[in-house]
Every structure is written in C-alpha cells, then in structure tokens.
C-alpha cells in the first residue's frame, strides 16, 4: 500500500498498528536519515547503505514472509532502474507486508511516481510508462497542494542594468562550468534586491544564509520549527523543496518575486511544478476510482 502525504506521527501510528495487528516480530524501515521514525521492533536502514553488500545480502537473508518492510520517503532519484530501487524491489519480493510512505508523489514529473508503483506492484510491469498501471497499485492519498502567494518587489533601473551586466559576464565566462550555475548565480543577485523588503518579525527560507539573518533558514536543514516561512528564494532542485515541505508541514507560502527575469523564471517554474503535482493527484483519483 502506498500512503501519500502523511505526517510523521501518522506514519508512526500506522506502523505501530500494523505491527500489533499482524503480530509482526521483525520490521525494517528503509529511509533517508533525516526522515527516520522511531517505532517498536523496527530497524532503521539508511537509504545510502541499501546498495552495500553488507546490507543487501543481510536483508535478503533476514526478510521472510513475516517481515514488515517500510519504505519511507525513498523517492530520491528519477531513474526507475536505479540500483537502490532494484535492491528495494528485491526486498519487497520476499514479503507481502509492506508500507510505502511518501509525502509528495513526484520529484519533477509524473513518471517519478511510477517508481513507487513498481514497489507496490512488485514490478509487475517492468518500468512501463503507461499511466493506467496506477490502477494496479493500492494508494491512500492525502493531497498536498502547495500554494504560492506572489509578493512582488520592485527593482530600480540600476539593479536591472547590473543584473544584465552580470548575466552577460556569467555567460561569457561560463567556460566548462555547469550551465545551471547561470540561473543559480543570477538568483543570488536578485537576493540583494529582496533583502531591503524582508520583515524582522517573520521567518524566511532561502538558498543560503549569506546575509547572516537571524530569522532565516536554508533548504539543507533537518528541522523547520519556525513555520510559517516566506519563500525568499527557491532551490534549483525540487527534491530539496519537497523535503522542506514535508519537514515544515507548511503548504501556503508568501513567495517573494523581484522584478527581474530570473525571479519570474523561478516562480513560473514552481507554478508548473505544482500543476504537474495536481496532474498526478488527478490521475491517481481517476485510476483508483476506476479500479
């Protein structure tokens, strides 16, 4: 069974209930360290150690028909044939007791969700991309729909011209650097424009705390106790934003958009991502109803 959108306490209760009702003596939770949940009889297996021989073969030996395998927030890569996913599928093939928890069903696009379907259906469809295979999976879905309230911030002509100069310089000197450094670095410039408009009484989330603000957190942290946050800037990879959504539990955000092309580009990119998220939820509703 795939459970989407659950918080940690809900997952904890569900695992405890499953273990109690079915008399499970042994359980493994495969999870990235920052999402690990303590539950009785559950041994935590860190996501990055899954592919190691010392873990893989031990688990193959220890998982039998009465073992519970909990897959927690393991959607970390878009490659459905990723070695870690292959290992997880091997574990799941040995038991019918499985719980799959994932906060958001995608990283970037629809096909990401099919990696979870592969887990649930024990790979019956061998990486097919046909969406109808969703109806073969058992899904319980609590939809998470982030909402971005746009907060426009005006910029001066000098800021626009320094942005254009910086853009020309970045492109000219890109050399062998990763091209994604262009939007990343331009976004840092727009940070200066937004800095004057932040309020001291609220918390912000951003790339890094280069302005040394006390009410500022980054996407790389493990706890976000100060919600609600306003989005000062978003990260380039959506997986980091998904982690932040889950760990903060927040879904409505004020999103600072300076009057520079880069801010508009990032904002539109986020809106498209939300649309994609909605498309997946709609497909899940459609195919689950049909089945």
């Amino acid at each position, binding site marked *: 069974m795939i459970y989407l959108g659950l918080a940690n306490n809900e997952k904890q209760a569900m695992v405890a209930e499953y273990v109690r009702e079915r008399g499970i003596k042994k359980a493994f939770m495969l999870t990235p360290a920052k999402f690990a949940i303590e539950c009785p009889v559950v041994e935590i297996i860190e996501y990055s150690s899954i*592919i*190691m*021989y*010392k873990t*893989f*073969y031990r688990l*193959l030996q220890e998982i039998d028909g009465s073992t519970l395998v909990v897959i927690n927030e393991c959607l970390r890569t878009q490659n459905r044939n990723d*070695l870690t996913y*292959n*290992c997880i599928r*091997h574990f799941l093939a040995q038991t019918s007791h499985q719980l799959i928890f994932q906060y958001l069903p995608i990283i970037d696009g629809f096909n990401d969700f099919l990696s979870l379907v592969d887990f649930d259906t024990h790979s019956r469809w*061998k990486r097919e991309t046909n969406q109808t295979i969703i109806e073969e999976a058992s899904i319980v879905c609590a939809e998470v729909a982030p909402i971005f309230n746009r907060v426009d911030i005006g910029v001066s002509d000098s800021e626009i011209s320094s942005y254009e100069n910086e*853009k020309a310089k970045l*492109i000219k000197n*890109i*050399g*062998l650097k990763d*091209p*994604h450094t*262009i*939007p990343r670095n*331009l976004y840092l410039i727009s940070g200066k424009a937004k800095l004057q408009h932040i309020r001291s009484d609220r918390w912000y989330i951003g790339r890094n705390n280069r302005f040394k603000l006390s009410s500022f957190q980054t996407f790389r942290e493990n706890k976000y106790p100060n919600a609600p946050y306003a989005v000062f800037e978003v990260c380039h990879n959506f997986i980091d934003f998904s982690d932040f959504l889950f760990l903060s539990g927040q879904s409505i955000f004020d999103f600072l958009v300076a009057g520079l*092309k*880069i801010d508009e*580009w990032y904002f539109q990119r986020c809106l498209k991502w939300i649309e994609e998220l909605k498309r997946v939820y709609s497909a899940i509703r459609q195919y689950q109803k049909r089945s």
Partner: protein
Amino acid sequence: MFIQRYDNTKNVLDAARERISFLFDAFETIIVSVSGGKDSTVLAHLTLSEAHARGRKVGLFFLDEEVVYESTIRQIEYLMDLFPDCISRYWLQIEFALTNATSATETQLICWEAGKHKIWMRSKNACSIQHRMWSEKEQTVRDKNKGFGFYDVIENFERCFTGAAFLVGLRAAGESPNRWRAMVKNPVDVNGTPVFWATKKGKNAAFYPLYDWNFSDVWKYIGGKGLQYSKIYDYQFKKGFSLNEMRVSSLIHERSFKSLCELPEFEPKTYNRLCKRLKGIQFAQETGKSAKMFKARKLPKNFKSWVTYRDFLLRTHPDTKHKTIFEKRFLRHLDNEFVARQQCRQLILNDYENNLPVDNKPDPREELIRYYEEVL
C-alpha cells in the same frame, strides 16, 4: 519488436537446467567458457552436473590472459578439477596481444611472450594448452595493425570445432537493456526450435543459459551448493563495493584498469609481479580513480578546454602508428567540448581499438547555455 514475457511457473534454476538438458540432447560437443567469475562458476557447475548424470564429457575453455588475479587462477584450477572424468581441459596459455590502457609507451602486452618467461606473472600450468590448436595458414586476424588479439584467439579456437555449443555465463537480468537486446535479437534454430538465448557463431553457436539470472540467483546457487568462488569478491565485499562494482575481470584493459587501485591491498604479490611485467602499473594504481587522469572527468588546471587538452595529447602522443589511427578517427567527429572530452579519454587510455566509442553529437551544454541566454 520484442515482447518481454514472464513465465512465473518455474524458477530460473529449473529453467537453466532445462536449457542445459536441451543442449545436451541437441549437441554432441559442448564447451563452457569460464573466466573465474561467479557467473561462469555457476554455469560450469550446472553443465558439469548434467554431464556427470549423463556420463558425457564437456569442454572447459579458459583463455589465460596472464595478467589476472591469482584468485582467478585458483578458481580455474578448482573448476578444472571439479568433475575430472567429465572434463576436457581447454586452458589456453598461448601468445597473443592485449591492450594495455595504463601506458602510452608499452601499449600492448604480449601475453606469454616467448623469451620473457622470467618476468611472466607465473609459470604456465602443466595441464594447459601451450601451442596454437590451429595451423599458421588457417589463422585469421581481424586487424593486422593491432596484431593477433584476444578476440582473434577466441574466433580461431571456435573454428576448431563444427556444430559445437559454446556456453557462456552472460546474464541480461539486472544488467543493461542493451545487453538483453543484443542477446536475444538473432535467435538460433536448433533442430527446428528457435532458441532466443543464443547467437550463431559460424558453424557453431553460443548459448546463454543463465541469461535471466540475477545477482542474487547466482549467489544463492553458489551458497546453496557450497561452491568455491573467487576470493576477490570477499575483498570487495569487505571494502563496501556496491553491486555493480563487484567484478572479477582483466586488470589492464580500458574498462577494467580501475581494479588496479585495490590490487595492492587484495593481492600484493600479484601487484608486485605486475609492476615488473608492464609499464604504467604504479601510475594507474595511484590515479586510476582520479577524475583528472584516466577517467577524464575533470580538466587538468593548465588547460582551458577539452579541445586544447585533446590537441595537446594528440600532438605529444608517443606512438606514431596509433597517433595516425586517432587522427583519422577524430576527423570524422564533431569539434565540440562534449566530443573532445571523450577523445581525451580515448587518448589517455590509448584506446586505438575504439573499445570506448565516442558519442559524436552536438554539445548539450551549449544548447542549455543558449536557452538560459534567451529566457533569463
């Protein structure tokens, strides 16, 4: 178009046994190619068990490249003695050329080269075949510039037989889809039955009875039967290698030189002998996993682009014969950073045989930069 079908009524072990039994019914001559790795160990054991039950003989073919792990040789000796009554030993220890990716000056190793027996990695085995089984006249060579190489030995060896089934422990499950496609695209007709896990090879055919086995199937069989396996797997396991890194292969060609990095730890004596045998070993041992050297992932600091680095490597290439091969090949390629990086890799690894082909296409980076220039 291929349609993948799954037969859930039997397990891969039963299916492999049936395949091998089918081959014993259809062929008089059966030869198993072994490398000392886990897959060929399983295949040899399955085939020899069937031969033992039927009172038949099968050939065990091992092409000894000289520069292999000592553990590999131990494994081959173990396999050759497994069912002595049922085995015809084809352990070839003959002179042939092997690419040396670790040196730009000693670009080839002549395995078992006459007159160099004092620096051979080890003495020849008393039970091995030490002379070519075919006449000089009949011998074929794919490329005379490269000399009589690894694949030439295999081709000439196979040509010594007619109507034989060569069994290979190649697996497609859990490996790349391309390998799976390559394996099944030309089915072989065996007495009217199309066999998809096979390829035709002249008057013989190669069969892959383990083609649908996975890593865990292989280890389960080895564990279940208590078979001996190469010690290298244990060393790699202790070192925390991931599944796809755990391979037992040659030590010096373009795809396997990385194994030199751990060789002093795993088999110090083999490493010592190899240093005396070939040039470039110590350097490759130190830099085999460096992004700037053999992997050609990072550009050395004193070059501004892969194109200039490639031009430098080509200009200073010490082997004029190979330099011409590279120059001719690169003329057919596009001139961009993406392609130049791959050309650098070929030059560093001395891949004049084109074993690591260049993906000749427009640079995806340039397209992305253009996009950012337009929209941002």
